[in-house]
């Protein structure tokens, strides 16, 4: 049974689109990335899952429970980091942890102290006195201190410095090892590439693709640079299936390839290949490719 399952989830705000017919299934123990630019509907989807907003139509089930009727039981088992985390100016992180622990019926503060040490978070200063990155660390602690079965993280690394981003990615990997399911909304495509098993790509409120990360990268247009001794063979690349954006400069050619390299290798082999470099695409290029495809 999927941990998160939505069917035709739709949210309309008056005349404005929120999300339309979003159908996804996130399996237990999976790290699922939810990708899209600002305003694509990522946060609306998450807020609907959490019952912070009510869907116009469609259903969402988490742990097999209805996200509206049984939201309290669902939230007992998950941790959530809201996008643009805030908790007011006066309270300290420790006070927030203490309150949330009591609301969850936890004695003590779970692993909050260990996480604070790991992320070098200051739990004693009022949150209003912390920088955005340091507030975000407190938000991460509040989402994870009780070792939830499901983590929902909306733009989790916003404001974190590169070292802390690394620490965060390590934490996500550990959570997966623990058996936790993780749902990450992000437009930081690099971090998603490094940590997610599958991704859903959302655009203008619609889910346009759900792919395994490896499949997604396989579909990507890799950038290739090749240098050959005999340049006459380079023209043979033109029109080859999967090859595009071919540019020839003397004995060197750059182009993009989708799919396997077999045709390219067979074509170039007779012409004495001196050098060949294939750049692994960033997810951003993959993502932009999807957008281009949809636009066409």
């Amino acid at each position, binding site marked *: 049974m999927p941990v998160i399952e939505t069917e035709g989830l739709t949210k309309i705000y008056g005349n404005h689109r929120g999300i339309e017919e979003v159908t996804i299934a996130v399996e237990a123990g999976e790290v699922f990335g939810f990708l899209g630019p600002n305003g694509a509907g990522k946060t609306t989807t998450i807020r609907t899952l959490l019952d912070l*907003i009510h869907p116009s139509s469609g259903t969402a089930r988490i742990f097999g429970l209805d996200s509206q009727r049984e939201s309290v039981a669902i939230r007992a088992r998950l941790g959530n980091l809201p996008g*643009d985390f805030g908790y007011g100016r006066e*309270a300290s992180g420790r006070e927030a942890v203490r309150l949330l622990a009591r609301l969850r019926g936890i004695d003590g503060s779970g692993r909050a102290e260990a996480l604070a040490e790991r992320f070098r978070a200051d739990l004693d200063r009022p949150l209003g006195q912390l920088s955005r990155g340091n507030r975000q660390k407190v938000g991460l602690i509040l989402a994870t201190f009780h070792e939830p079965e499901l983590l929902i993280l909306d733009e989790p690394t916003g404001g974190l410095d590169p070292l802390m981003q690394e620490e965060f990615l390590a934490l996500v990997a550990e959570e997966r090892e623990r058996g936790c399911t993780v749902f990450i909304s992000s437009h930081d495509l690099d971090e998603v590439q490094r940590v997610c098993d599958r991704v859903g790509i959302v655009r203008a409120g619609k889910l346009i693709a759900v792919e395994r990360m490896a499949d997604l990268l396989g579909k990507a247009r890799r950038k290739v640079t090749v240098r050959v001794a005999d340049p006459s063979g380079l023209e043979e690349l033109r029109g080859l299936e999967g090859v595009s954006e071919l540019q020839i400069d003397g004995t060197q050619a750059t182009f993009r390839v989708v799919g396997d390299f077999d045709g390219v290798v067979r074509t170039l082999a007779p012409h004495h290949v001196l050098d060949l470099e294939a750049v692994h695409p960033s997810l951003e290029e993959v993502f932009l490719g999807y957008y281009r495809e949809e636009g066409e």
Partner: protein
Amino acid sequence: MGSQLAALVGAHLSDRRRSVLAWGLPLGLMSAFIVAIFPSVQGALSQAIEKYPSGLKEAFGIGELSNVEQYLHAEMLSLIVPLAAGYLAVRAVASGLSGAAESGRLDVLLSSPLSRGRLCAAGFLATAIELAAVLAVDALLTGLGSVLSGADLAAGPTLAGFASVWPLALLFAGLGIVACGFSLRTSVVTGSVAGVLVAMYVIDLIGKLDPGLSGVRYVSVFKYYGNAIEDGIDPLAFCGVTAAAVVLAAIGSWLFDGRDISA
């Protein structure tokens, strides 16, 4: 789940601990001052009030002013304290709902296994306690002013006078939760309910001034407020207004449960 309510009420009161002094001290000191000067102004006041039109005296609850209790009611308990306490109530309850939504805290709290109804109940309960604390500080300082000035203010009626403000102010906490069912902008919530508060006072005043319009007073909570420092607390009015406040809070909670929590 009672522990959730206790935790939320505790956190709410902790957040607003300064407001007990910020509101209680000025109101209490002002009341204490009124009580303290009464012995020296009593004669002149009685002469001046004799010349007031009877309608005006009735409208503002100004009686003979032959004792300090009457003077305290006329100067503080008939207008300033109820309006201030009503406004405090809506601010307090809004801080836990619309204020929390604006700061992002509501998203965090509602990520835990907490129902919105319990959140509203906690805000209402915490506001009731905060109001009681502010009114207790007022009554205490007023009593202190009397002791220091020798004004001879009776303790029981004074307590009754301040206590009778509590259900009236609580009604506006209930209205505040109703307002949060429609808007999560604190300025809208406090502004609209403060408007109702002033409108109810004015409606009651008009009803008192014009006997032909006395019927409109029934829509104002000030009709049921009375003059507890002189007449004692009317248990029916006290309980009735408290019950109305609870009903409004329940309606507000239902509305709040059905609304979206905006990002």
